[in-house]
């Protein structure tokens, strides 16, 4: 395996509604920044891969316009996954492992404000057996939270503490959307949004984009002062049928974490893609993380949840924190699908 490192990360400030810019206009400054930060001239980046979904834009082939943001002229070697950008990063990492290219630009984007996100996610479920029942994203997460509560695996207070900590952490992240000091007792005094979830248990609706440049071996060392090495990257998937799996655990995260060797060294901090409070608890346990480990110093998806970028952003945030000297070995995680169906785990080292 070739050693591959993250050279730079950039993102938009996360906002509830991006009113003035379309996707291409959101991406252009992000791509300029990430390419400049990589130290590699744009024309010399060997591969480009993006992640997005047509169902946020409400348009077929919505990723085609994004090509305008990367300057694909002369033509570029490029690919796209209909997945979170974290999986675009995986495809690019594979391309580098093939020895075909030495560097890659990865980006992802989405404007959730264009529709009713929670209801749009209903269309992500099995169209024959599940979608006709109309479960929205929050209701499905509520079923999952209920399983753990009934089994005594977590309490509503545990969940509120995740929310309060995430938004307290977000105070130091200038790009975060929801931040501030919240009292857990006051949070618990709020009414349910979808029982047993209160508003603070759920992610905000966010518009945003993110981008990363990676490179191999010597090129990475020559290009930036502090490359952040991707020591491992693994992803796995669980069944789509909510009634066909134990929602209180995440076997795919556990398996991906084992394959990625999370436990084979000290972990200094983690960035976990947990859009709902109880999901952070599930993920910590699946990855075997210590109770006192710093998780989501960025605020995580509870502080800003740019769909299709929120996973890539965890990897980018973790790399940023390593560069800033806030630890030398970190776990970053991305998820996709209802109730943590698909999960990617990546170990980063400074």
């Amino acid at each position: 395996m070739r050693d591959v490192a993250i050279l730079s990360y950039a993102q938009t400030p996360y906002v509830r509604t991006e009113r003035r810019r379309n996707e291409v206009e959101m991406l252009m400054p992000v791509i300029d920044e990430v390419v400049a930060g990589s130290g590699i001239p744009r024309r010399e980046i060997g591969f480009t891969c993006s992640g997005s979904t047509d169902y946020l834009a409400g348009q077929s082939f919505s990723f085609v316009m994004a090509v305008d943001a990367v300057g694909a002229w002369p033509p570029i070697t490029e690919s796209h996954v209909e997945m979170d950008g974290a999986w675009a990063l995986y495809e690019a990492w594979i391309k580098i492992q093939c020895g075909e290219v030495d560097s890659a630009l990865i980006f992802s984007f989405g404007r959730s404000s264009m529709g009713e996100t929670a209801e749009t996610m209903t269309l992500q479920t099995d169209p024959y057996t599940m979608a006709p029942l109309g479960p929205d994203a929050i209701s499905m997460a509520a079923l999952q939270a209920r399983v753990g509560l009934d089994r005594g695996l977590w309490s509503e207070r545990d969940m509120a503490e995740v929310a309060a900590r995430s938004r307290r952490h977000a105070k130091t992240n200038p790009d975060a959307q929801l931040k501030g000091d919240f009292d857990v007792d006051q949070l618990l005094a709020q009414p349910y949004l979808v029982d047993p979830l209160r508003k603070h248990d759920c992610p905000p609706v966010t518009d945003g984009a993110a981008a990363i440049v990676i490179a191999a071996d010597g090129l990475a060392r020559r290009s930036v002062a502090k490359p952040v090495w991707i020591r491992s990257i693994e992803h796995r998937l669980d069944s789509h049928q909510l009634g066909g799996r134990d929602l209180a655990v995440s076997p795919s995260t556990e398996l991906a974490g084992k394959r990625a060797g999370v436990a084979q060294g000290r972990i200094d901090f983690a960035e976990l893609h947990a859009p709902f409070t109880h999901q952070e608890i599930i993920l910590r346990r699946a990855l075997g993380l210590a109770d006192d480990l710093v998780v989501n110093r960025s605020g995580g998806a509870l502080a800003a949840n740019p769909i299709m970028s929120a996973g890539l952003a965890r990897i980018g945030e973790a790399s940023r924190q390593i560069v800033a000297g806030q630890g030398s070995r970190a776990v970053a995680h991305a998820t996709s699908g209802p109730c943590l169906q698909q999960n990617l785990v990546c170990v980063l080292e400074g």
Partner: protein
Amino acid sequence: MAEHAAVIGIGQTKYDAKRIDVSQVGLIREAARRALDDAGLDWKDIDAVVIGKAPDMFEGVMMPELFLAEALGGVGKPMLRVHTAGSVGGSTAIVAASLVQSGVHERVLTVAYEKQSESNAMWALSIKLPFSVAMVAGAGGFFAPLIRGYMRRSGAPEDTGIRVALKDRLNALKNPYAHLKLPDVTFEMIANSPMLWDPIRYLETCPSSDGACAMVISNAKHARASGKQPAWIHATQMKTEPTSFAGRDQVMPKAGLECSRELYKKAGISDPRREIDCAEIYVPFSWFEPMWMENLHFAPINEGWKMTYEGATALDGDLPVNMSGGVLSSNAIGASGMIRFAEAAMQVRKQAGEHQVDRARKAMGHAYGGGSQYFSMWIVGDQPL
């Protein structure tokens, strides 16, 4: 390249206008099961799954790979979903190959599909968006002016497209999986079919199909042990350019010219017309055969039509093109690119039955998408490179 990769199993569904006998799950499973059977493998032997399809709005399911993964034995495995417009079937095969070439996996299942009968593809492509020009033209309306441009530049005889369509429709009669089969097709029948988007006639156009195509791609160790002729992957390439800007040549896109040039270089090919034995390329409208013959450096610029006219691209010509009947005979959009790649592999594996090119030892698969701006291609051979 760290590892050699080869196609060791291929499966296709019967392509049809409406496969109402199966769900999306049943459709992909039919192709995948056939590919596994061809490879002599079972679900448990597969390390990772790569799914490709064109826009999700064609079936009205957001990221359908999430609900399809289980039917492909994907639980507990890595699963990727590729989408690069019309070229996606090819790109999906290329991503699956790269999982093996990187040394990360040994046996990968890849499936591409479309079930177009669940919606209306033409209108799914023509949604009116705020602050943008509404095309409301479907793909035919988009590509007809490019064909006009080619006719004007090349001076090609007006009936070139009819000749392409006749050849592909006759080839389709030899392919048991083909959707559109016209046993009594003639030059006159095509020439007299209604003009849809001038200069594209009804019978010079692809149908709208349901269908799936699957392949098992493995490393050299498993390919040699498989007991059947593998299709060794010599080279793959993808290339993209923007949809539109002043000065862009949409008739002869630079991305296609460069993609094929780089592909041949990787595959050690210096004279593609002589060294490649047959090619299965993405021709959704008849005239794209001569256009792509030039774009792929098989013919000099403005002379691609001569290959069609002289019969070079016929099944018994010196470079048979679209032996399966091509996209003109089966077009499940998301699968169409992979069907091209799979046909190239079938040819070098000598699996193509009545549409087999006997001398096929090196074959090309090609796909394109968007506004002639996304390209994916591969070269496969009966021996490793």
